[in-house]
Every structure is written in C-alpha cells, then in structure tokens.
C-alpha cells in the first residue's frame, strides 16, 4: 500500500502582499515530497477554511506580515471548530511579536515560525506532528 502524502495548505490571510516567504515554503515543502496547495493573496478566514476542507489537508500554514494576526487567527480557529475540522493542524509564520505567541498558541495555533526559520525545520515539524496525530 502506498503511504498517503501529507497535504498542506499554505494560506495568506490579511491584506499584505508579502508572498516571498509563503512561496519559498511552498516550493521547499513540495521538493521534500509533500502535496502543497497555495491559496494566493488576501484570503478571508472563510475562504481559507473552505479550501482546507475541500482539499482535505492535514496542515494549514498561515503566512501573515500585516499585523492582523491577533484578529484573523482566532477567527480561523473558531471557524475550524465550527466546521468540525479542528483535527487540521494550524501553524503560522511572518511578522509576529514574541509577546503575541503564547496567546496564539493557547487558542490553538500549534507552532509559530519566526523569520530565520529554516524550511527544513518546518518540514520536519510537520512530519513529526502529523505522524504523532495519526497514532
């Protein structure tokens, strides 16, 4: 039996157009053998959740550099719960002040990768945690 590939949605909520990081991560994860879907820019929480469910992903990676994370992330998590899709792991990266991290983890963002994180570390984290979850 062939093992099912891990599916990842890289999503850009917020109004900023900084997609360098999101695109580099999409390409790096794809090269490591993951199935990667990229939403494109400026997606609402609703659009992100619909895409995640339709694409049946294991992980949502949120990339945001606009400063709106404290408003948009809780919405995304709430919507996931509402749609009973909160088995999907949610991780995030971008310009996020360190003091916001504990709050965001508490509401259900599993991990936050700050600037300087390596794509290999992100890939490794995904592999370990998706495996852990499916045990």
């Amino acid at each position, binding site marked *: 039996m062939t093992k099912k590939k891990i599916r990842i949605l890289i999503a850009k909520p917020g109004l900023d157009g900084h997609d360098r990081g999101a*695109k580099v991560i999409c390409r790096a994860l794809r090269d490591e053998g993951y199935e990667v879907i990229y939403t*494109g820019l400026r997606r609402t929480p609703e659009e992100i959740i619909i895409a995640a469910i339709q694409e049946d992903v294991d992980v949502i990676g949120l990339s945001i550099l606009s*400063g709106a994370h404290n408003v948009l992330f809780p919405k995304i998590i709430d919507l996931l719960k509402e749609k009973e899709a909160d088995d999907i792991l949610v991780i995030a990266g971008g310009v996020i002040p360190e003091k916001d991290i504990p709050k965001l983890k508490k509401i259900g963002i599993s991990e936050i990768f*700050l600037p300087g994180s390596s794509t290999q570390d992100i890939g490794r984290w995904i592999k370990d945690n998706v495996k852990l979850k499916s045990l």
Partner: protein
Amino acid sequence: MKSLKKENFSQKDMKKSLIFWKKEKYDKATHSDVNKKRDFTSISGKKIKELYTPLDLDGFDYLRDLGFPGEYPYTRGVHPSMYRGRLWTMRQFSGFGTAEDTNKRYKYLLSHGQTGLSVAFHLPTLMGIDSDHHLSQGEIGKCGVAVDSLADMEILFDGIPLDRVSTSMTINPPAAVLWAMYIAVGEKQGVSPKHISGTIQNDILKEYIAQKTFIFPPRPSMKLIIDTFEFGSKEVPRWNIISISGYHIREAGSTALQELAFTLRDGIEYVEWALERGLEIDEFSPRLSFFFNAHNDFFEEIAKFRAARKIWAEVMRERFRAKNPRSWWLRFHTQTSGVSLTAQQPYNNTIRVAIQALAAVLGGTQSLHTNSLDETYALPSEEAVTIALRTQQIMAHESGVANCIDPLGGAYFVEKLTKEMEEEAKEYIRKIDDMGGMVKAVEFGFPQKEIADSAYKYQKAVEKKEKIIVGVNAFQMEHEPISTLQIDESVAKQQLARLKEVKKTRNNTYVKQNLLDLQKAAENDENLMPFILNCVKSYATLGEIIDSLKKIYGEYQEPITY
C-alpha cells in the same frame, strides 16, 4: 632618467607580474582546505575575484565612463557638489494608528532633525478600501496610518506647513487619490499646488512584479499613472510624480542585478507610455525619481547605484533623445534592506543598517531611510526609530564620508563591478524589449518567475550555510524578547467613528454626483485628476472613489504560482 623609465611598466609586464603573484604567492597562501571551501560570491551569487588591477579596466575612459559629478554620464553623482552642497535628505518612513498618532510622530521627527516626511499608510488605504470594509478587520492602523478621506489627511498634516516640508507618500494603485487629498490640504492651508513638493510612489509595475499591492489590471493602471504625469507637469511642477522602485523587487528576493535591470526597464515603460500620450519628454522626465534597496553586500550595492545613474543617463539621452540634462538625471531614494534584518539578536540589526546606509551614501543617494532594529517584529518603537535616524546623523557629521564626492571612484574593484553591472543590466533590458516591453513581460510572468527563483536559491544557500547570517545559521544564542510598538484595537474604533461622522455630515448628493462624473470620465478616457480632486474635496472616501473606477476598469487577478 633611466630608473624613471624602468618604473613605466607596460601592460604586458603587469599581466606577467599578476600571473606570477597569483601562482606563487596567492595560491600558496590560500592552499588550505578551509579557504578552498569558502564562498567568494556576492550576496547575489556573483563571483568575486581575489584582486582587481588596472588590467580589469582595459578600455576604461575616464571622461566617457565616469565624467565629473553633475556631468554626463553622472556615474559620480547627479549634482556637481553632492553632499558638500547639501547632505542627503534624512527621510524616515513612518505612519501608524490614527492620523492624530502619526501627526504627533511627524512633529517629533521634525523636531529631532529629520528633514522630510514619508507617509506609511495602513493596508486598507494601500489597497483602496475604507476602514469599514470587511477586509479591513484587524488591519486598521497596523501597518501605517489610516486614511479614508480628506478629513483624515487634514489631521495628519495639522500644524505642518506644506510649503516648508517635502512629503513622500508610499502609495501605488490609489496614488492619484491620496495625492489629490494632499493637494487639497495644501489649498486649505493657503499653499498653491505650485508650491508643494514631495513624491508619490505611483509605481504599479513593481506591484505586479513584487509587492503585490494592485487593484486594477495593468493597462488601466498605466493610464491612471500617465494622467498624474500629465497633470503634475502642468499643475504641480515641484512634485516627483513617480518613484520607480527597485526596493520591493529586491525585498521579494531578486538579485542586485535584477533589481537594477527591472527597475530601469520599468522606467523605460513609463516614459514610452507618456510619449504615446503625447507628452513632451523634457516636460515630465525631470520629475521622475527612483527608489533603491541598500542590501548587505557593500561593494555590489555601490556599483549598482553608480551603474543605475550611468545607464539611465544614456537611456534618456540616446534612446529617448531628451535634451534637458535634468531629464538625464537619475535621482534616487534609498531604504536599507528590510529582509536582511534578523529576528534573532535584533540589536545586531543596527550594524547591518549602518553598513547598508554607508553603501547608499557612497553610492550617491539623494535621500535615505534607515530601518529600525525591531522591524522583524512590528512597526518600530520610538526608541528604535531614533537610533535609526542617529545612524544617519553620525555618518553625515562624524565619519567624514560626506566630505569627498564619490570617494570610491577609480577603485579597480568598484569600477569593474560598476561596468559589469551596467553590461548585464543592459542585457536584461534588451531581453524585455524583445518581449514587447514590461507590461507584456509582467503578463508573461517573466520578472515574477526570475525573482521567485532567486529567492528560492538564496534560501537554499542559507540553509546549506553557503551564506552565513549571523545569529540565524551561525553564532546563534538565546535573547530576551525586545519591547515593540503595540497598536491596540481602540484605533479601529476611533477610525470607524470618524468615517461614520464624515459620511453623515458631508453633502451626499454632491458626493454622488462627483463620483458619477468620475466614472463617466473614466469611460470616456479623460484625464481623471480633476475629477478625483473634486471627489476628495467633497469628502468622498477613498473606497468610494476606487469602487467607482473598479466598475469601469475591473480588478486584477494574479495567477497563483510558486
């Protein structure tokens, strides 16, 4: 007499000596494996030789290739006196929260010796939507100052005489609207549009290429920009109608060369569209300005700035037959590189900023923004922004670098790099010419793809430690979180209340009529500036004005690729 002759080495002698030195001295001294493994490429991946000599400048002609400052081809600077006549403008980009908050920060910066203003708008303004739009949730006042209507702009510049400061506004697809608001504030202060000065970024091409703040498709966007060229050259003669920007191209991951080439080709595209409209080359060209990035690789950056001036002078004189020397000048603003800052050990960023700023000054920039050490986390705190400004002041007043014009001119390495940068950029420009111009190239996705490839290559090089970033992939250590500027949600409440009040107290019949007139003018392909001015003066909001135009022009959808 005899001994003097002996010192007059021929090129052949020099070549021989160099080969000997390389083989017998240099190669032996770098014999160890450690040295063999070291990477001697620039941050853009360009191979750098161990030594540059007069042999690298074969065919170099001082007057043709460099000339004197203020003289064609301006390699050494656009002004004859450069910083001896006037220092560069220290222009820190700032804006956050409400117009009241930012107005206070501007007055603080001006009182501390800053010499020009530079407005950062919040993302809804940059995207042409109002604060009460559903996409504005969580964004109000975060990345910059919230401006929805003329009412906000009046507060933003309250107590700041617009005939005495110059203001740069980073605004792109809705540039015409924000510029109209600024003109209107000036008129309310009793300052004629003829006497205000500043810059609007107004560069849509690099938005499709890199920064991705777009609204309309490329062609109507270009039309709107040429409207501002036409209006500006007649009505607002001291205004820089565009800041053709490489900054964002570089931040999105391009190499120094790609930044240079794409930016200059963008410039050529605007000139071609303006000529097609029937504008006179020497009427608008002196008001074109540029904006570059200053990244970490010191000499590569200096070469980039010098090559930029030389290529542009040639393009304007030879390709477009401009007669006015001012049309040949490439005047530019520089900002230090945001992406080069690290979240790890953030105080190290002050050193990066200083090196980058020095490259900008040695490259002959007209104005400079130095980034703050905390910007990988949030908008800068007042303390961080003060250190950034002081960095420029120390450079200007203590280091002595402003004493001499183009102090690196003539250095073998710098001249060779400049020459190579020039030749390779021209190659790229030709390639885009062959595609049918930059709008076409953007539609093909050519520059987008080139940049994404460079960004990915660089990231891989960092992960393989071929490129070292201090504190990130080497010399790591734990650090205490630093305190950052916090924009609380009360900003949104205040902004929404003001917007509601504006919509209630203005003459709504008049607003509606002005918006309809604008729409009709867009349909008839008229110059939209006078119509936009009427709209803003009646307190039509930015979102309302842009929505009217969306009805005619549609919206751009970017193909999703990575």
